[in-house]
């Protein structure tokens, strides 16, 4: 049976010439390399100027919220990896934190230190990836090579810890599964040193680069009003002059104890966001360096002790009958959290990543809402793109740091 080509009628042809108002429709994506995923952008052009932009999403829709309602809580955790797959631990952490708050438990201190280390490494991975691909889109190819090299070091650290490089699932509900391997902190320290010098080199390549500034400065200006209207968060919001970092303003985990600055921008343009990414990488290194002594001082417990929700450590499961029974029930039937609702927001590298869980007391969530920051950062394009030139589209999409795994979920 042959495919009948004409059956697949797209809603728009790729290009409409000579419409009545003499604008041109350009269908950008969904298979466009600089759309950073599967985004379809229908652009109406007057010459080279955009008069109307209609972003279309949903090409990576896997129904994660539906899956979350049909899986027991532990089962769903690896699925959250596939949201923001550039920094998957941030999703794992957001989810684990939400479930922990629903259960009313807290991860032990060492677990919290390891989690925070992983979170910040993931932030670096995400920012380096952003820098690399964004610079590549704009035309600075060499930055791509350098930034990916350092990202590789960060991924090696993740690999040494949990064995995975992209989809880590390294955080579990109630703690972390493993302690850090021997010598890992030394590698981390070394990586921090490398990164600090390398960030300087990236800035040397880009910050005062004439072409880079021409392509980024005053392009994609998001003012404070617009950012608030569109529920922007993370760097997009901070670049518009709002000092709002959840790690600082509504802190969770270890962040109240850590010393770091929240850089903010003023202009809200792409260049301001670039500056923020670079400064944030430095702050992240600062956090990582503070965490190493905290790790050494912590007790060795890795999972919270809550027998009705969290399985006992392996040694206990293997030696004590009741722990084994409990573990068996938790794996086959799942934990039964209290009835209630939680909305737990964390600062992921992209912005406010939140998990809303409505629990009716059964092992399956009654409602699981995943709030992904990129969703509105993409919706924003409707308002942001008109008035810009066609060449700026790629800059703006790349600059907003959207990841389609979390937009479509």
């Amino acid at each position, binding site marked *: 049976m042959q495919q009948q080509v004409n059956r697949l009628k797209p809603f728009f042809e790729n290009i409409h010439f000579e419409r009545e108002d003499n604008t041109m429709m350009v269908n950008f994506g969904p298979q466009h390399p600089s759309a950073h995923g599967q985004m379809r952008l229908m652009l109406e052009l007057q010459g080279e100027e955009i008069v109307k932009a209609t972003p279309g999403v949903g090409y990576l829709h896997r129904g994660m919220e539906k899956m979350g309602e049909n899986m027991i809580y532990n089962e769903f955790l690896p699925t959250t990896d596939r949201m923001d797959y550039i920094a998957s631990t941030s999703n794992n952490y957001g989810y684990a934190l939400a479930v922990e708050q629903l259960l009313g438990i807290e991860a032990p201190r060492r677990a919290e230190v390891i989690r925070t280390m992983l979170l910040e490494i993931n932030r670096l991975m995400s920012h380096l990836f952003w820098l690399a691909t964004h610079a590549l889109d704009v035309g600075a190819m060499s930055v791509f090579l350098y930034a990916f090299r350092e990202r590789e070091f960060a991924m090696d650290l993740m690999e040494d810890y949990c064995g995975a490089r992209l989809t880590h699932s390294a955080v579990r509900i109630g703690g972390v599964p493993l302690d850090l391997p021997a010598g890992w902190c030394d590698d981390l320290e070394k990586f921090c040193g490398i990164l600090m010098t390398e960030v300087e080199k990236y800035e040397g390549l880009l910050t005062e680069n004439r072409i880079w500034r021409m392509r980024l400065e005053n392009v994609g200006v998001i003012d404070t009003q617009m950012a608030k209207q569109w*529920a922007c968060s993370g760097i997009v919001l901070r670049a518009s002059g709002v000092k709002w970092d959840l790690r600082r303003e509504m802190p969770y985990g270890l962040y109240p104890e850590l010393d770091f600055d929240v850089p903010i921008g003023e202009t809200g343009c792409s260049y301001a966001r670039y500056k923020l990414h670079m400064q944030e990488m430095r702050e992240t290194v600062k956090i990582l360096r503070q965490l190493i002594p905290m790790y050494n001082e912590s007790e060795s417990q890795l999972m919270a002790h809550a027998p009705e929700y969290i399985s006992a450590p392996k040694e206990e499961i293997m030696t004590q009958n009741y722990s084994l029974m409990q573990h068996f029930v938790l794996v086959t*039937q799942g934990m039964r959290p209290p009835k*209630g609702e939680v909305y737990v927001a964390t600062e992921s590298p992209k912005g406010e990543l939140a998990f809303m869980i409505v629990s009716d007391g059964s092992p399956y969530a009654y409602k699981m809402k995943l709030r992904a920051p990129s969703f509105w950062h993409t919706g924003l394009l409707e308002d942001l793109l008109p008035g810009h030139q066609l060449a700026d589209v790629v800059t703006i999409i790349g600059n907003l740091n959207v990841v389609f795994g979390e937009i479509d979920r």
Partner: protein
Amino acid sequence: MRKYTSKTDVQAKSYYNDRFYVTPTLPRSKASDDEVYSKDIEALSAKFEISENYVENKELVIYIQPDKNVEVLTYLKEELEYDMCMELSAVDYIASRGGFEIFYEMLSMSKHRRMRVKTFIRQKQPLESIINVFKMASWSEREMYDMYGVKVVNHPNMKRILMPDDWYDYPLRKTYPLTGDEAASWYEVDKIFGKEARDIIGPEIRDCAAIDRYDTERFSRLGHEVPFGTDITDGKEPEHTPLAYQEEGGVRFIKKLNEEDSVTIKERR
């Protein structure tokens, strides 16, 4: 006779429930115990009808009338400094209460507080769009319509966002099965090959865990290997299958590898 299963909720269910288990509830406190929330509640109840309010997990939850959503959110935004709406969506209670619970997740950056504004609408009751108060509703309400079929009125571009425009039914409702319904299994067949090809192709298997033990083209069988594409639907399997693995005289992946010369490096260069 097949066991009766409810069609109003086809979500996964626990197969064993302890008769004596008492489900605990997440502790709730009164809004008046919190200094910020008590003022907010006071100001709100003076102007609007707040049917219920409590603080759950450090966050204020209030219930309002569905026709007052725009007024309440405008008031929250302009008077009470809840200037961002971070999220909105619905929760399906069609089977138990005949409608949806809509929630708006508000954030006040000056007070460092969150508030969840909730309202209940019946299944086909229209809901006013809040797009004039918060622009983010432009996409959120589309998603809510796409996933739950909540009718939002006065939205300039109310159409599906994640699912295709011609998709049948609303995927996040409790009545919608995880692997999709009948219409979903024919969607791509109809779209690509046409309705007339249904008999030839058959419905799409949307259960990713589905295994067909007689299908020797897409499923290999551990322990009892049969050659690719052998018809074993009659139950007769070949007694002896000649097996040839690639390692035995096949093509090697690295042709010129000399194992004595290779070294394992300790550190990345």
